[in-house]
C-alpha cells in the first residue's frame, strides 16, 4: 500500500447524501478479477450518458455535462468533498479501488459508512470526518472559488484552507500508523502467530464443535 503523509490538492464537491458504493462503481465492473483499471468507470452511471460495460474505452463516451466530475474546473482533483453517509451499501472494495485509480487520495465528509471507511485505509485513501457545519461551509467555498485546494497533513491530523484556517480531525492511531508508513496489515498480524495459535488451542477445549 502506498503511504500517505501530506497532500495538497484540488477539491471536487459531490453534493448529495447517502452516496452508495453501487453508484461509486456499478456492478457490471465488479466482474473484473483485478484490483486496477476501475478509474475510468468511477461513478459511471452519473458520469456518462451511455451504458458502460467492462473493458469499454471511455475516451469517446458521451459525458453528462451536469455531473461535477466532468466540469473542467475540477479536472485533476485529488480530494473529494462529500455529504453524510458516504459509501453506504455494498462492501465492494472496488469502490475505493475506483476512487484511488481515478486519483483521489482524500475524502472529506460529515460521516461515512463503516465498511467503506475501513476499506479506504486498506488502500491508501484517507477518509476524513469533519463536522457537518464545516463541511457545509467547505461546499460553499469550493463552489465559489475556482482552483480551491486543501492541504491535508495526516501526521499532524489537520486540514488547512487556502485562507490558512486549520481544522483538526480525528483518526484511529493504529490506522494512522499503517497509512503513514504504508504497512501491510497481514504482515503485522502475522507477528502474533503464537497468540493466534494459543487462542485456537484454548478455544478447541471450550468449543470443540467449531473445529
Amino acid at each position, binding site marked *: 500500500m502506498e503511504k500517505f503523509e501530506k497532500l495538497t490538492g484540488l477539491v471536487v464537491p459531490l*453534493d*448529495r*447524501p*447517502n452516496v*452508495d458504493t*453501487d*453508484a461509486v462503481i*456499478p*456492478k*457490471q465492473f*465488479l*466482474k*473484473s*478479477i*483485478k*484490483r486496477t483499471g476501475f478509474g475510468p468507470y468511477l461513478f459511471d*452511471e452519473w458520469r456518462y450518458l451511455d*451504458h458502460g460495460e*467492462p*473493458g469499454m474505452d471511455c475516451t469517446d463516451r458521451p459525458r453528462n455535462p451536469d455531473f461535477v466530475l466532468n466540469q473542467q474546473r475540477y479536472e485533476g482533483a485529488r480530494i473529494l468533498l462529500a*455529504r*453524510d*453517509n458516504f459509501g*453506504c*451499501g*455494498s*462492501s*465492494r*472494495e472496488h469502490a*475505493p479501488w475506483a476512487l484511488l485509480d481515478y486519483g483521489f487520495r482524500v475524502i472529506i465528509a460529515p*460521516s461515512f*459508512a*463503516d*465498511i467503506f471507511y*475501513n*476499506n479506504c485505509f*486498506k*488502500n491508501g485513501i484517507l477518509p476524513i470526518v469533519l463536522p457537518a457545519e464545516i463541511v457545509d461551509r467547505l461546499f460553499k467555498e469550493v463552489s465559489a472559488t475556482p482552483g480551491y485546494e486543501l492541504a491535508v497533513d495526516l501526521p499532524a491530523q489537520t486540514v488547512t484552507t487556502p485562507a490558512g484556517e486549520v481544522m483538526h480531525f480525528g483518526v*484511529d*492511531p*493504529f490506522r494512522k500508523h499503517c497509512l503513514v508508513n504504508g504497512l501491510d*496489515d*497481514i504482515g*503485522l*498480524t*502475522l507477528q*502474533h502467530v503464537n*497468540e*493466534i495459535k494459543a*487462542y*485456537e488451542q484454548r*478455544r478447541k477445549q*471450550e*468449543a*470443540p*464443535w*467449531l*473445529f
Partner: protein
Amino acid sequence: MAGKTLYDKLWDSHVVRCDDHGTCLLYIDRHLVHEVTSPQAFEGLRLAGRKPWRIAANLAVPDHNVPTTSRGRGIEDPVSRLQVQTLDSNCAEFGITEFKMDDPRQGIVHVIGPEQGATLPGMTVVCGDSHTSTHGAFGALAFGIGTSEVEHVLATQCLIQKKSKNMLMSVDGRPSPGITAKDIVLAIIGEIGTAGGTGYAIEFGGQAIAELSIEGRMTVCNMTIEAGARAGMIAVDDKTIAYLEKRPLAPQGALWGQAAAVWRELRSDPDAQFDRVARLDAAAIKPQVSWGTSPEMVVAVDGTVPDPDEEQDDVKREAMRAALSYMDLPPRTPVTDIRLDKVFIGSCTNSRIEDLRAAARIVEGRRVADNIKQALVVPGSGLIKRQAEGEGLDRVFIEAGFEWREPGCSMCLAMNADRLQPGERCASTSNRNFEGRQGQGGRTHLVSPAMAAAAAIAGRFVDIRELI
C-alpha cells in the same frame, strides 16, 4: 458490574489480543466466500506466497454471476464466466470446499450458510459481502468485509477490529396479521435512517422479534446494513436450536448436546447496558413500500409518496427531489396508484421456503396482471427450490404466469442476465433500491414477498391486509 450484552459476549470470546488503543485481533470461525469479492484476495495470497490458515473454516459458492435459467449451457457472458471459473480454480488450488454452480446445494451465500449449519450460534462469521449480517439471526457475530480483509482472514484467520457500540432495537408487542419480518425491518430503517446504526452492533429484541420464525429473523438481520450497522443479531432460543439440529455441518451426537447447552446462554444479561436503545411499536407497523432510492425512503402502503416541499432540511429535500425524479413519481401519489412493470421475488432477504410459501398463498388460483412484463421467482438455494417443488409451489407460480428460476442473486443486483430495462418499475423483495441497482435506469420498490405477489396479480401495489 453491569451484565454483558450478546454482542459483548460474542466479542469477548473471540479476542486474540488488543493494543492500548482498543485495536484488537478478532478470531474468525467461519469465512464464506463468493466469486465477486474473492479473486483479488486469492491473488494477494499467491503473490505473497501465503496459504490459508485454516482451510476448513472456509466455504465457497458462486451466486452473483450465475444464470438463473438452465445451467446446462454454462455462463454466456465471458467476463462473468471467467469470474466463476476463477473461484473454481482458487478453491481447487487451496483445497476450499465449494458448492459449484451445478451442485444442488448451490445458492445465495447467506442462504446456504444457515441451511448447511455452516453458521452456528456463538460464531464469528464473515464474508466479503455486506449482507453477512444475515447470520446474526443465530446469535452469531456476523459482518461484511472488504476484499483486503478477505485476504487477511484467509491468511491469518483473524481480523483487525475495534469494538462497536451496543444498540438495542426493541420491537415491542405484536404486529397485525399480514405484517412480515420485511415490513418490520423496513419500518425500522424508515425510523432510524440508513445511518442510524453506524458505529453500532444492533441487537434486535422485543416480543415481535422473539415471535418471528428463524427465517423471519434472518430477513431482519439481513437488512441491518441498510440501517448503517455492520452487524445485527438476535438471542438464541429454542427455535434457533431446533432449526440447526441435524444440519450437515452442525455438531452431531454428544457434541450437539454440549454445544446446544452453551448456545442457550447467548443472550444479553438482564442488567446489560446498551449505549443506545430504540423502540418500535409492532402494532403500528403497516405493510411497507419504498418510494425512493434509499432504503430509508419508505411509506405505508395506505400512504402517499412524500412531498419534498414539506422537508425543512436542505440536503434532505434535494435528495428527495433527486429520488422522486429518478423514480418518476409525482409527490403525493397514493402508493396503491403506482403501477409496475416487473416483479422480483428472491434475494438473500426473501428467498427462503417461508417467503415462497407466503407469495404462493397470494398467487394461488390467480393470474399475473397484463401490464406485468415479467414476474420472477428465484429460490435462494437449490435445496429450497427442490423443497418448493415438492410442495407444488412451482406449479402455483407457473400457472399464475411467473417464471420459476434456478437459485442465485439474480435481479437483486443484476450482475447476471436478469435485469430491469431503463425506466422499468419493479416490486422487489430484495434489500436495496439504489439507482441502477436492478439494472441501469431501473426503478425499485422494496416490499415483502406477499406484497410483491399481490402487486404482480393487481399490476399495482395493493394493501395485503385486504387480501388475507
